[in-house]
């Protein structure tokens, strides 16, 4: 694998990565996916995906990731488990340095996705794993019959709160603004759920406990009042940040770190594409990530044809 120059190397094995692999291999490009864990990316944190079209009974994230990988491998895509440490985009072929050796490719598709943002509250790192988590779907069952709080106001937070409300005795949803932004289907459900309480215009200022979390101090940012909330668990769902550090010195990034690329997925370097959550885009979902994957593969193929006829 390491002596071969691939037509296309894809960094990241989530929905964007494996969709681009599927399209690239079907277009006849030799394709390698480099993924540091198992397939699926952020999808693996969701037990019930109901908004990816075609699964009329919903699907769990890990399974969907595996299906996407197998779908691409069916047409010849190869995967290696490794972590990318550096990339050299100035040379042709491009060089990708990993903890399992170097790989070479004519075109590169970056599908590294995003990861959970931390709140930065006092006690957050201290109680990580001891009542503070970022994935309600992962940990929810451990709080059966207990009281939890979710921090955030967008899709992740409202979906997490909805999921937890079915398992827990009580769910608080803490949001620093006065309205929730999540999908209506979730916010309406939450408004009507008897065991869900919204705490709006509020922020967590301190996380407390002894061996595990016991309470959080909340500040109302309108009145300045501080109150204590007794909880067994805290889930932080305030959004994600792009995994783009590897490209900070080579690709154009926006102020939040997203790789600048429009729906063509083309970056400022010819033959290098950004697909999925990692690029600048208005709406991050599995289905928009897969769309990017297909588009990136399409333009990668066009690029390969161009350099083949020139070279």
């Amino acid at each position, binding site marked *: 694998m390491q002596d071969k120059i691939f037509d296309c190397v894809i960094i990241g094995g989530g929905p964007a990565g494996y969709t681009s692999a599927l399209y690239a291999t079907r277009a006849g490009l030799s394709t390698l996916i480099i993924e540091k*864990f198992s397939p699926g990316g952020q999808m*693996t944190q969701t037990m019930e995906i109901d908004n990816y079209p075609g699964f009329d009974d919903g699907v769990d994230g*890990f399974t969907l990731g595996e299906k996407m990988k197998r779908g691409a491998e069916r047409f010849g895509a190869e995967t290696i488990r490794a*972590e990318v440490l550096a990339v050299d985009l100035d040379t042709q072929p491009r060089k990708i340095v990993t903890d399992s050796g170097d790989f070479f490719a004519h075109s590169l598709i970056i599908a590294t996705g995003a990861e959970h943002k931390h709140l930065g509250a006092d006690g957050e790192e201290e109680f990580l794993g*001891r009542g503070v988590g970022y994935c309600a779907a*992962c940990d929810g069952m451990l709080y059966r019959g207990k009281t939890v709080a979710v921090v955030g106001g967008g899709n992740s937070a409202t979906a997490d709160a909805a999921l937890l409300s079915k398992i827990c005795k009580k769910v608080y949803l803490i949001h620093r603004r006065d309205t929730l932004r999540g999908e209506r289907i979730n916010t309406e459900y939450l408004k009507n759920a008897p065991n869900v309480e919204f705490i709006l215009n509020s922020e967590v200022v301190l996380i407390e406990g002894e061996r595990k979390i016991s309470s959080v101090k909340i500040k109302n940012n309108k009145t300045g009042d501080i109150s204590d909330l007794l909880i067994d668990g805290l889930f932080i769902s305030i959004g994600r940040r792009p995994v783009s550090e590897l490209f900070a010195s080579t690709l154009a990034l926006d102020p939040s770190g997203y790789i600048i690329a429009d729906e063509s997925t083309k970056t400022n370097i010819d033959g290098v594409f950004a697909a999925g959550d990692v690029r600048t885009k208005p709406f991050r979902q599995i289905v928009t990530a897969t769309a990017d994957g297909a588009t990136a593969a399409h333009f990668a193929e066009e690029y390969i044809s161009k350099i083949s006829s020139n070279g």
Partner: protein
Amino acid sequence: MSVILVNKNNFKEEVLDSSLPVLVDFYADWCGPCRMLAPVLAELADEHPEIKVAKINVDEEGELALKFEVMNIPSLFVIKDGKVTNRALGVKTKAQLLALFE
């Protein structure tokens, strides 16, 4: 070596009394990130015989999970000579797991 499944019956022998440092992973079958971590742990166990890798199912071993105050998974602990020397939460790469032993 392969990853060892630990329960309350073999916990003392396999983990506390182990002469090798042990990486303990608390997991559950329904946890996606736990499933993501599984192949990484298997590779670590295969490639590093100087480390023992053990996994504990939180649904089946509630007592052990409580003892370690596991509230979120996957929860990882490094145990040397019967004492916890390091801990981590969430999916980690092989390199990150090895760094826990330093």
